[in-house]
């Protein structure tokens, strides 16, 4: 147990970015599964989930590109997808699907927010330029915030 900064080396930063990759993979796999399998969904919701899955895939690739520059291994998406499918039964009704999507977006937002704060508190030097790293994470956080807003709007419209 330690109260030291969690982001004081390339290795620790890579590990945290890997956790971000897994979170994005979870969103991607769930949204894609809902879009493909939930019978109750209308076209608007199906299109929304498909877009959310695509956005998470983009986020994952952006994080992978950062990790690659830190020279650390990532976990293949297929393995995570299998884990998600093994552990998770898809919701069928759209309330459950939207609520799950909202939790996913909020979790990702919180993760990026905490990671940005931890990097800002740390005085470590990384292989990736600090400003560039923070800008990339801030962009991801902003997109997650927009995602939360979109789901909330969709939920309110359907009440």
């Amino acid at each position: 147990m330690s109260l030291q900064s969690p982001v004081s080396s390339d290795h620790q930063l890579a590990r945290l970015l890997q956790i971000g990759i897994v979170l994005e993979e979870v969103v991607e796999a769930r949204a894609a599964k809902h879009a493909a399998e939930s019978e109750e969904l209308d076209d608007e919701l199906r299109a929304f989930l498909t877009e959310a899955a695509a956005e998470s895939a983009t986020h994952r690739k952006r994080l992978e590109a950062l990790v690659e520059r830190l020279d650390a291994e990532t976990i293949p998406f297929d393995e995570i997808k299998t884990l998600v499918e093994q552990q998770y039964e898809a919701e069928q009704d759209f309330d459950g699907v939207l609520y799950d999507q909202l939790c996913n977006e909020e979790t990702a937002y919180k993760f990026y927010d905490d990671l940005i704060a931890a990097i800002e508190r740390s005085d470590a030097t990384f292989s990736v330029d600090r400003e560039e790293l923070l800008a990339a994470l801030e962009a991801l956080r902003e997109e997650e915030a927009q995602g939360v807003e979109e789901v909330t709007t969709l939920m309110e419209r359907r009440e």
Partner: protein
Amino acid sequence: MNTANQYLKAIYLVQEMENGPASTGAVAELLDVSPASANEMIGKLEGDGLCQHEKYKGVDLTAEGISRARDALQNYCIIERFLFEVLAVEEFRAEARQLEPVIDETVAERLDTIIDREPQCPDCFDPETDVCALLAFELDAEQADL
């Protein structure tokens, strides 16, 4: 996880090990901080009604303190198991300790959806070895197979 929750978890674990009130020295040692820092934070936690501190006796968590400490411990178990099961990190204990402050409970809940955690968690956590006893058992079994 914020610093207050890390302290609550440390006090809880020391109380488990000492089977009574936790000495501030042992809490400070577990967190790798100075006794003065530990005393200061314990004073704040006491002010928030999360523990009671009696000089020369030690710290006792209140019911609310225990509840928060157990949530924090559960988050820590999720991080350890996630690192071990999903990212196949060999040094999962050390890395969980480093990552703990930046993994919030909402994030831990999401990570929890892709790991196999037993319902008795966090009671299976062994404070002496700083790892879930069930996870330690799985690790031993895995090493025996090699």
